[in-house]
């Protein structure tokens, strides 16, 4: 009998061995190299910053290692990470959801609308307005994701195109409804806001919960199987459709949390142009691809992008004579460079495919 073909190359390891969380995060060499690269860069920056405190490196180090940057990162990362986690569930189940941006937009609007209807300070059945706002935002996003799920799973729509449609619909619908309700594409300000600590807490819980759900529960295994080899799941009697519905709906729920948190942190929905979501849903996709479908990796990637943005904001204020608009370009260039260096991420084998049970 021939020995296993590849054992000598890739050490057999059990991804679920009772190892540390960090072990789970570095599920592949890909994530490991990302982590190593990031840590290395930071170390380099720290050392050169200490060595030459008055140089660019010193300034940069001062920015990167400040608490202000850290909290800023936490705030900016929330919608990206939450939507990114949602994206993992959908894509792991085999449905690529590129409509995350749309889900963020619709939940951002609906949460503000719901809060204004209830009236800030009021409560319905003892539930305070802001909590209702969150629930409403989540419900809206989940509903839209359910439409997406039906269209993709029931009617076998092309996932990429249906996802684009979700984005376009939300991009039109939110300002449309805002105009109908409030007379303009931007809503008035609620006058209250949800502190970033709440968002950050939600991010932590959502990340940990997602990690648990994906790696420790039966559902997580079914999800993975639905995305890798739906037939294997089907033949053991688990409905692929149901698992995929669950995956897509979860993407709606998580994006709903993200969108609501985004709007409620300001207390207002801004619907002009690209809306206040400003492409965060697309960055979320990049984040979970970057994080290689690992919730912790996604958290890291989201933090990376948000951190770059936070640094960018602070760099501007140092008054280097670089045009601000160019500084704003840095995160995008970084994404391209990193993607070029690390190359492909592992798309689930059956993602994007329709699955039909035989008869």
């Amino acid at each position, binding site marked *: 009998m021939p020995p296993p073909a590849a054992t000598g190359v890739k050490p057999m390891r059990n991804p679920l061995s009772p190892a540390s969380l960090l072990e789970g995060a570095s599920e592949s060499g890909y994530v490991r190299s990302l982590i190593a690269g990031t840590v290395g860069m930071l170390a380099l920056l720290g050392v050169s910053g200490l060595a030459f405190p008055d140089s660019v490196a010193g300034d940069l180090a001062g920015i990167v290692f400040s608490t202000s940057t850290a909290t800023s990162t936490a705030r900016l990362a929330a919608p990206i990470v939450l939507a990114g986690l949602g994206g993992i569930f959908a894509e792991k189940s085999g449905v690529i959801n590129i409509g995350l941006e749309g889900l963020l937009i619709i939940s951002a609007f609906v949460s503000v609308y719901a809060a204004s209807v209830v009236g800030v300070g009021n409560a319905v059945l003892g539930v305070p307005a802001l909590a209702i706002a969150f629930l409403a935002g989540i419900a809206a996003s989940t509903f839209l994701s359910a439409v997406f799920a039906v269209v993709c799973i029931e009617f076998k729509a092309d996932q990429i195109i249906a996802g684009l449609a979700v984005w376009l619909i939300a991009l039109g619908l939110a300002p449309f409804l805002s105009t109908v309700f409030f007379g303009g594409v931007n809503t008035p300000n609620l006058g209250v806001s949800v502190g970033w600590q709440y968002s950050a807490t939600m991010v932590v819980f959502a990340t940990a919960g997602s990690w648990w759900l994906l790696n420790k529960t039966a559902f997580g295994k079914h999800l993975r199987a639905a995305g890798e080899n739906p037939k294997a799941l089907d033949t053991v009697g688990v409905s692929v459709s149901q698992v995929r519905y669950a995956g897509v709906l979860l993407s709606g729920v998580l994006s709903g949390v993200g969108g609501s948190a985004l709007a409620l942190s300001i207390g207002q929905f801004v619907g002009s142009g690209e809306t206040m979501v400003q492409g965060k849903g697309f960055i979320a996709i990049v984040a979970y691809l970057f994080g290689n479908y690992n919730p912790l990796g996604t958290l890291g990637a989201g933090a990376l992008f948000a951190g770059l943005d936070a640094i960018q904001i602070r760099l501007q204020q140092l008054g280097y004579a670089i*045009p601000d608009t160019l500084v704003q370009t840095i995160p995008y260039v970084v994404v*391209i460079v990193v993607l070029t260096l690390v190359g492909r991420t592992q798309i689930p084998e059956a993602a994007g495919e329709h699955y039909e049970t035989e008869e």
Partner: protein
Amino acid sequence: MSDSAPDGDRTESLLARVVAPFVDRSVAERLVISVAAILLSIVVGFALVLVSGRIAQCSTAAWTMPLTGIGFCYDPIEVYVVLFNGALGYPFAVGDPGLFNPAWTPFNLSFGLTLSETTLLIFTGLSVAVAFRAGLFNIGTQGQLVVGALSTALSVLALAPLLPAGPVAGAVLIVVGTAAGAVGGGLWGAIPGALKAYADANEVITTIMLNFVAANVAYVLVLEVFRAEGSSVVATRYVPEYAQFPSVLFPPSTDFALLALAGGIAFIGALYYFVEHTSLGYDLRTSGVQAAAAEYGGVNAKLTTVRAMTLSGALGGIGGAVWVLMSEGRWMASIPDLGFDGITVSILAGNNPIGVLPAAFLFGVLKGGALEIGFRTDVPTELVAVLRGLIILFVAMPEFFRMIGRYTGVGGTAGGPGGAASAESDASAGGDGGEADA
């Protein structure tokens, strides 16, 4: 799909699977589904207008529902009359005796605007379509258009003083400017192509990122270097009048030139010929539907990827050139989202170059009609954006319409537009037969 499928083809075959249903579907069925999708989105939009017309507050009812006497702030019928009739400049005399408006000429402002948008969308639609055919999802047409437009504006502005003003110089400048746009956009498009081919970087992500980069870099360049003296907006100087596409027949304010539209149609023909009747076109679309088979057939996958993205970018760049030389007369920040609209055009067209023409026209109508809606009615113009999204959503789910077709016994291709419409009414009426073979 077999176990032996090489890992290296995963992304390619994934894309191929995504793209495949959109390139080989029979044209007739495609047409029926597109029309049905448009009709269905109109129906949904109708309901949306009704509901929001009940929610919004106004002093007088724009429309009263027959029989019920319930008043609505928005008139859902008028919305569509204004949308489609208005986009053409009101050729139909709705409500008045006689079908046609006798004073109507095609060379009116609204129709000109519609055609102007159509022309621009032809180029961006072709740009997305050609990449799609090669199995590449180019979200970056917008960035390629921005870069192309800037190349056009700068090259024409640089060259104009060297030539004696006049129609000859105009022709030269238009040709050079368009070529510069193609080169600029093509090079910008080649970047994600090369990254995809040689570094395996997902082109969806890189093109999205490059859109931001293009917008920001072009903005800074114009703001800091090429801004017109004294201008308070971020824009270059205007290119000379004679170097812009002349508006023949249509009022100059339409920003529409028949010549540019003719150029767009010529490009459609050329691209169709390229894809269907040339060896390189065969390489390109074979890579799109089945990358592994293309490689087997001696197609250099990497080169084809770069080629397709370059061609796609060049088309986007030409779109930018036309925008500069026909619409705006200069490069200006806040370029409209023609590149993103190109994605929707291409999808509606089934990524078929020929289909791009009607699809671009439809979105041109939606654009022209949106302006009319904003102007004539109280309905927020974002309605049209919602309609656009719905059309894309419905076009993406042909299975839904096939199902309706099966339930109602309406054949896939027999009915044409009418067939699809009756398919829906039949479905609500209960359907007759055809259930047995489900």
